[in-house]
């Protein structure tokens, strides 16, 4: 079980939890604004961009190669950027905070 805190670009805070699936799916199930997941979670559209809270980045980990390349196209890319369709939900990421970029 992992509890995730999303903070949207209009400063709405949404706390959601799940056992499995991707963080993008969790965000969509909980109507988190700014997470569109247009491609359905195959790392092709970059519409699920989040900044992982600085202190949580180690828990979440760095993006894979394709994801990192996709992120480069994003205007608000920084060293804590992730596409959350590529973050699997597990105990390891329990308690992390994600700032939704769009």
């Amino acid at each position: 079980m992992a509890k995730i805190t999303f903070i949207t670009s209009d400063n709405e805070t949404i706390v959601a939890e799940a056992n499995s699936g991707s963080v993008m799916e969790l965000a969509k199930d909980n109507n988190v604004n700014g997470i569109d997941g247009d491609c359905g979670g195959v790392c092709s559209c970059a519409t699920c961009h989040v900044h992982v809270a600085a202190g949580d980045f180690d828990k979440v980990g760095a993006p894979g190669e394709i994801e990192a390349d996709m992120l480069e196209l994003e205007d608000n890319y920084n060293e804590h950027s992730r596409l959350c369709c590529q973050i699997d939900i597990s105990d390891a990421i329990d308690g992390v905070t994600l700032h939704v970029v769009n």
Partner: protein
Amino acid sequence: MIGASHAGVNFAFALRKEGWEGRIVLFDKDPVRPYHRPPLSKAYLTSDDPIEKHSLKSAESYEKEQIELCLGVGIISINRDTKTITLDTGEIQVYDQLVLATGARPLMPPIPGMDTAHQLYPLRTAHDVQQIKAALGDGKGKRAVIIGGGYIGLEIAASMKKLGAEVTVLEREARVLARVTAPEMSAFFQQLHAEQGVNVLTNKNVVSIATEGADNIVHCADGSQYPADLIVVGVGIRVNLELAKDAGLEIENGIKVNAQTQTSDTAIYAIGDCSFHHNPLYNRWVRLESVQNAVDQAKVAAAVIAGKDASYNSLPWFWSDQFDVKLQMVGLSEGYDELLIREEESERKFSAWYFRGDQLLAVDAVNNAKAYVIGTKFITEGKQVDKGKLIDTDVPLKPADLIKN
């Protein structure tokens, strides 16, 4: 809103986000809560996950945003004088603004024997895939014939192969993906499928299907025959234009719209697969079958209806996943006069760059998101690529190294 798939649903939510306070009513013939279509031929076909896993939005989202979903309802006609539409239930719905996202339906070619074939399906809806899955069972040893070697056909082939079926793809043209990509890309995908054990055959014009009980035999013009337990037809689409046509809206290769996605009646908009629109980046009229176009046009229509200045000027992009290959495409390659292939050190990782003179038109990237991203940047910014450096694998794939000085 007529049509509640990628375009319709994204439009509705975008319109709320723009501050529209009036009613938003979505109609669609499909009774299933709107879902992502791309996974239908991939993840949804190969797993037991329910379609809800691929929903575009949760049921609560529609409630929260007060977006009314009227599913399983068809529309019979549009009456522009009274600003009403007539539902197939006989009811009348009034509108202030009407958005058409009527999409397309699978093209079912008039092949003798199609109507009587056993387990023959198109693939456009969740229901189609449910029927295909039921026909496949556990997949093992089932003989599947796929008519059409386009993206849909090849994605279905890859998925069915993964499930253990014996898969044959029959393509009428001399190469797969003939309508949408360069011969070099076609060759790559044909080989990929062959290596994975899919029987991909080209120059195969299906002329009839003979069926006895549960056994189909697919006959081609060259006399060859292919037995099939299951047949999937993926030969393209027909745009759903009837409503717009009957309403007297201007039609070309789709419902003609301006940069604000308005049809020839400014109270009626058309977005997604059904819209024939001008792409300013390429300065030509196009009709696109893609998620990107549906979503981007939805945003423009919503902004315009909410009273904002907005025009459509997106760079088109597409993707396809087959086996372990991720294909990402950006731009429109039509009219190219030179194709350069950039190889990488890894196997099955390369990119195809389409040029007209010095102008980069499009990039197809195979397992190579970097090429896709760089291609997007160069096309958007109108920058020129140094072709010599591009094909030199000793030059890193980085914008600064590839720009033409």
